[in-house]
């Protein structure tokens, strides 16, 4: 019956008992059918909600009691992951995926856990599988971006994070990571816009505020940078990151001894708040250089390089300060190593650019793997070898790379305690089991 006819005679429904009864039965039948249809799903949702409220121990009991309950196992895996038991969490997720191979959340989480464990290839495969199962899965793109940050592909990382933010524009974590990716690629204008967007969405995000402060600093907006960083310190006066950032700002704008001293005071506060922050020690060293205290500078730079062995500025300044402190031979050695590292990083940047433009540039991939092997970045080398093996299995460099990787892995394995209980193969070239 058409709407117009019903509208034309609205009173007819109410006029006789027969249609009313008929409608009532129809409604009851539909309700019954709906209930029958939705009951399992409702029950499932209720069950999942209940599982989410459970502690790790309750979940462990639940999983023991009902080993086939995929939801329980999944929640248990998350609980394990949250408490830092990554390997156990991975094992649980692999079990989940054996039973439910196309579960995108599990694939994404598995990718995230592999990334935390430095198993980059497995992470890449899992995240790609998550995206195959759910093509517009923003969080998988975000984790893919984080994976590329970890594997020193900053431009590619920015691209993946951009995609994540396009799909989920209000995800604070993805936005902040994108801001950092922009900073890393010296794209300060967009970094600033991204942090400002976060602060509109979440005005109390201190991480975004610190990122904005650093970005404004890079954009030469001193006043803006200082005011932003001071807002962070107003909320938390001992925030080490804000203190060291403000200290650096003061250091780099200092033109008098008094200003240098003020920078030094801030940086001292920063390392008191977080003695594990290499940036604070590094900048304290730079202050000492400017104050012509090379021995003290050496001490600070050594501390920074111990905390962050890849810190280019600390290595460079250490070499320079050693020379000024009279340790010329050691200084020259440190500087020679630094030069090699710098030129290698230039080449890495060049190769990444090539791969960014053409992901199937297998020669670039092979050279990157060589550099990773030279620099002891074995997990990243394994990732590149895997990608090369998949994309260009007959590449002439591949056998040599695999052999070298195996040798270096074996050497590394003998020099560290065995990782017993690690799920998956210990062979770095092994891919995770296909769900």
């Amino acid at each position, binding site marked *: 019956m058409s709407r117009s006819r019903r509208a034309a005679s609205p009173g007819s429904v109410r006029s006789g008992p027969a249609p009313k009864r008929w409608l009532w039965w129809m409604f009851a039948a539909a309700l019954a059918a709906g209930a029958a249809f939705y009951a399992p799903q409702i029950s499932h949702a209720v069950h999942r909600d209940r599982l989410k409220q459970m502690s790790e121990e309750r979940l462990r009991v639940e999983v023991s009691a009902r080993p086939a309950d995929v939801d329980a196992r999944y929640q248990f895996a998350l609980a394990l992951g949250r408490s830092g038991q990554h390997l156990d969490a991975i094992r649980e997720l692999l079990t989940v995926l054996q039973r439910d191979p196309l579960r995108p959340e599990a694939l994404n989480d598995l990718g995230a856990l592999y990334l935390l464990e430095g198993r980059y290839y497995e992470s890449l495969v899992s995240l790609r599988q998550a995206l195959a199962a759910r093509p517009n899965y923003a969080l998988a793109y975000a984790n893919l971006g984080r994976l590329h940050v970890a594997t020193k592909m900053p431009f590619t990382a920015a691209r993946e994070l951009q995609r994540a933010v396009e799909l989920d524009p209000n995800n604070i974590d993805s936005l902040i990571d994108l801001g950092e990716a922009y900073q890393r690629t010296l794209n300060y204008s967009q970094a600033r816009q991204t942090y400002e967007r976060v602060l509109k969405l979440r005005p109390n995000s201190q991480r975004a505020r610190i990122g904005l402060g650093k970005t404004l600093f890079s954009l030469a907006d001193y006043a803006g940078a200082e005011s932003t960083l001071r807002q962070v310190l107003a909320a938390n006066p001992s925030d080490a990151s804000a203190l060291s*950032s403000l200290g650096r700002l003061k250091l*780099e704008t200092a033109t008098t001894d008094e200003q240098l001293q003020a920078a030094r005071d801030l940086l001292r506060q920063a390392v008191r708040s977080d003695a594990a922050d290499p940036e604070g020690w590094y900048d304290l060293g730079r202050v000492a250089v400017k104050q012509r205290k090379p021995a003290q500078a050496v001490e600070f730079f050594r501390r920074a390089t111990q905390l962050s062995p890849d810190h280019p500025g600390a290595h460079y300044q250490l070499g320079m300060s050693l020379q000024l402190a009279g340790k010329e031979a050691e200084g020259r050695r440190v500087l020679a190593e630094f030069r090699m590292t710098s030129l290698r990083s230039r080449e890495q940047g060049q190769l990444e650019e090539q791969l960014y433009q053409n992901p199937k540039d297998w020669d670039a991939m092979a050279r990157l793997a060589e550099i990773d092997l030279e620099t002891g970045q074995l997990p990243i080398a394994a990732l590149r070898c895997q990608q090369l093996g998949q994309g260009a299995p007959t590449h002439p460099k591949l056998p040599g790379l695999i052999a070298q990787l195996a040798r270096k892995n074996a050497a590394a394995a003998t020099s560290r305690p065995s990782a017993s209980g690690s799920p998956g193969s210990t062979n770095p070239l092994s891919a995770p089991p296909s769900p």
Partner: protein
Amino acid sequence: MNSPLQQFSLTAHRVRRNHFAGLCVLSATSAILVGCGGRAKPEHSGSLLPPPARTGGGATGAFALKDSAEALGVRFKHSHGTSAPLTIVETMGGGCAVLDFDGDGRMDLFFTSAGQDFKQERQEPGSGLFRQTESGSFENVTAAAGLTIDTYAMGCCVGDYDNDGRSDLFVTGFGRNQLFHNLGGRFEDVTTTAGILHRPGQWGTGCSFVDIDRDGKLDLYVANYVVYDPAVPLCRTSNTMTGCTPNRYKTQRNELYRNLGGGRFEECAIPRGADDPSGAGLGVLSTDLNNDGWPEILVANDGTPNALLQNVKGKFKNIGDMAGIAYGETGAMRAGMGIDGGDYDGDGKMDITITNFFHEPNSLYRQRDFPFFEDHSYLSGVGTPSINRLGFGTVFVDLDQDGRPDLYAGNGHVFDNVHEFSDVATFEQLDLVLLNQGRGKFQEIAGGGAQPSLKSVARGVAAGDLNNDGAPDLVINCLGRAARVLMNQPTSPRHWLGVSLTGTRSNRSAIGARVEVTTQEGLQVREIRSGGSYCSQSDPRALFGLGGTVDPAQVKLTVRWPGGNRQSVKLSRLDQYLQITEEGR
């Protein structure tokens, strides 16, 4: 439904980063720049150049830089092709030279121009030679002087390589370099007969005539940039395609040509340790950093460590790393473009400035005790105003004649479409004038050029006293735009002294000579140099502003010739160009 793991900010929490590279800005102060006195008529006769008429002997140091190219007849427009966006080859621009090619005592000008299409072997000739006439205006004499340059030209440097008393010209470029022998107002291309190499894919940039072995014959150093890959003309910056940075390409080694005499050169960079294969070379500076008489060579490298080639009796060792000039303070390989040397703090030791990329401060390396330099970019006040500009040509030049070298830097971005992905950077930019305040500090003067609002895309910058009035002027080659000639017009001129040298035992151009002037106000040091800045050549004479000094008896002038001779000269009056010939031939 999101799981907590999906929210992990994994790497951000794991990786501690070296936060930020650069710093901030915007403390422009304004002093100066008003008033235009009448332009002094260039005067010259024989070995003693009479001074221009002075308007008074005040000591305020005020001056104006007036853009006078059009008025002086310097109508030159750089050409580089029309790709959009510009590739790296098209965006690097060219240099300029202040030289006296006809030996009349008046400085002439030369500008390089690239051409219409760098992919072609030969270009329509566009480089320009401008002769200064007696009236002080300039006339284009390129064709008459036989200077038909059909290469995609870039850099230039000047020196009398055959000691015949005439300034010869070397022109670098993408694809080919050229050596022009000065026959007396006319030039002859002697590239091939002189033994200058033509290497496929070569990209010559900065150059310098320098007597590396002190044999009295000028050798030649040529920086090379990168190996351009035509398959990769553009790269992605943010979401926009732009010309690539040099990091996308392999670097080229540099060349060193030893002068064999008889107009012949022999390339010997590798055996002499001067090839710097890992550098993307642009600006070249030859200067005697340790004052031992053996000139060092420095190369501003783009995105690669700057080179300091220490001269050890004619052989070189790259000590840039240990000296502290290879990198920025944070260990970052900056994008070195232009370079110059000067003793900005009056301690008798040469300091170095290098211009860098946008978001990188221009570098000021203060010489501590050779070979050690300290990065004083920020401490000196040079870093902050330069951070949001992309610097190319740069010169130490005493614009206000107070006896302290100031700094001029020409600026302009390399990406012509930078506005598409940055709301901070612009293609055209203001130049930067930093006045030396003494005690190692510089202060920016608002408005880089004559008109504060005039932005351009500066590349080569050269300094020279075009009208012989003792106030140094500036010449700027701008990418794809009209050249600029900024005439320095002191509103309260100070006394000055110019020195023009002729070597006898040393090379005739006296390149490598060190000229020291001591007054009650302190020591000033200048060197006679070839090349420098960004692919450019400044005035081959030494010019000293004398600040408050008014009595010639208070001025002590000493020349240390490239061959090692020392010669003191007594002055009877100031405000003149002294012609000094090396004694003891």
